[in-house]
């Protein structure tokens, strides 16, 4: 699939070069406002960030952010379901105005699209039983922690854990989670999405100890649309300050806005 998406990126890139500045308009923000509708691409197969609800409508963290954005701009919202491989072509070819599609901010992607400030993050953290006293990596000394083998959390835990800590590696997040549930281990290193499952299975028994790392996601804008990008950034600042983004986090991820989104 990666060869495929590279091929597509190449074709789109080539097309953009050929089309040149002829189709690049100066002010997409003005266009959207005069059209009265904003088209936003969202994923529908990446719960809880993007999914199809019972009514077969896009729903989740990303669509909720998109709804706030359209309301703020004072335009109608048209959600366009996109997929991992085709989301950047959708944006570059102008089929959507923005992507709120869990697009992790990476240097490679920043070459083809322009990213806003982060609006979401997938956080990897150490979670554990309420009564276990761990607040920083050093506290792991002498304790046992479960992780999925060769995952991001495995690498992160291995890096920070002291010598005396035991790292139990399982084949998957599900197996590590099972060990936590059955009491074989009291601590686990996993993502915030995985923590959602933990909370569902055993509400109120486990909490977050400390964060390991995070991958932040940004809203993507077609390159050269400085005014639109500035507007999006101002919007993100606003919903971060007025608590609305915090609510979206509470609703879909079961916890407040991660620390990495707060620092500017």
């Amino acid at each position, binding site marked *: 699939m990666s060869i495929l998406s590279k091929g*597509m990126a190449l074709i789109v890139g080539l097309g953009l070069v050929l*089309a040149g500045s002829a189709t690049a308009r100066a002010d997409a923000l003005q266009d959207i406002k005069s059209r009265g509708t904003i088209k936003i691409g969202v994923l529908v197969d*990446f*719960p809880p960030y993007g999914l199809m609800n019972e009514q077969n409508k896009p729903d989740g963290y990303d669509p909720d952010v998109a709804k706030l954005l359209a309301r703020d701009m004072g335009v109608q919202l048209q959600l366009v379901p996109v997929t991992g491989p085709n989301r950047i*072509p959708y944006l570059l070819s102008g089929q959507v105005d923005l992507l709120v599609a869990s697009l992790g901010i990476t240097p490679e992607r920043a070459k083809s699209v322009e990213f806003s400030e982060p609006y979401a993050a997938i956080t990897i953290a150490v979670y554990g039983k309420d009564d276990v006293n761990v607040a920083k990596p050093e506290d792991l000394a002498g304790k046992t922690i479960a992780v999925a083998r060769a995952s991001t959390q495995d690498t992160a835990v291995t890096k920070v854990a002291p010598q005396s800590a035991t790292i139990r590696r399982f084949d998957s997040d599900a197996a590590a989670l099972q060990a936590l549930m059955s009491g074989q281990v009291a601590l686990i290193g996993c993502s915030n999405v995985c923590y959602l499952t933990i909370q569902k299975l055993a509400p109120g028994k486990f909490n977050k100890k400390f964060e390991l790392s995070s991958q932040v996601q940004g809203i993507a804008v077609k390159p050269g649309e400085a005014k639109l990008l500035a507007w999006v950034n101002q919007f993100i600042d606003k919903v971060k300050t007025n608590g609305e983004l915090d609510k979206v986090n509470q609703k879909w991820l079961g916890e407040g806005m991660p620390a990495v989104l707060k620092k500017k």
Partner: protein
Amino acid sequence: MIRQFGWNEFELLVLAARWTIVLALFAFVGGGIGGLIVALLRTGDSRVARTAMVAFIRVFQGTPLLMQLFLAYFGMAIFGFNVNPLTAAVIALTAHASAYLGEIWRGCIEAVPRGQTEAATVLGLHYVARMRHVVLPQAARIAVPPTVGFLVQLLKETSLTSIIGFVELTRQGQIITSVTFRPFLVYGIVAAVYFILCWPLSLAARGMERGMARATQR
């Protein structure tokens, strides 16, 4: 976030098959007309038309359908033609099917013994009458199995249109799997629906073959 797989999900899945059917019908009709034109020009007398058809077949057989769909939708949009996804899909599927059916049918036309054409010419039949009454009916009999084989394949290939935003059977299966975590059940149903769509085609093909065999019995 995990949702039970219930009647609602089953219904969504089966309803998504309507796009598979619509796209397949467009591809069959478009490809049938296009393929006949390609096959006739490819076996015709005009050298220019023959060369053009060879080039057309090479390009569309030599590039993946996925890329053809991609270019028909995103490519045209970049150059300022805003086609809707259905138009793009119909264009790409028609061109793809025309190239394949054209080449299949050319083989079938050429398989009709040359003596048949010569005899028809001697009897004073012109090109249209010769093709219509002598060559094509005999070619059609040979053409049934490979044509149906290709059409069944084409029906399943419509799943590639998810790249330009169609939520057809396969894509709907992926979406439902992501919230229900029941891949075996969901893809099992998807496979069953494809089978229900393809099986009648194969049955019809057998019926047609029998009918034609009877017609040409001596």
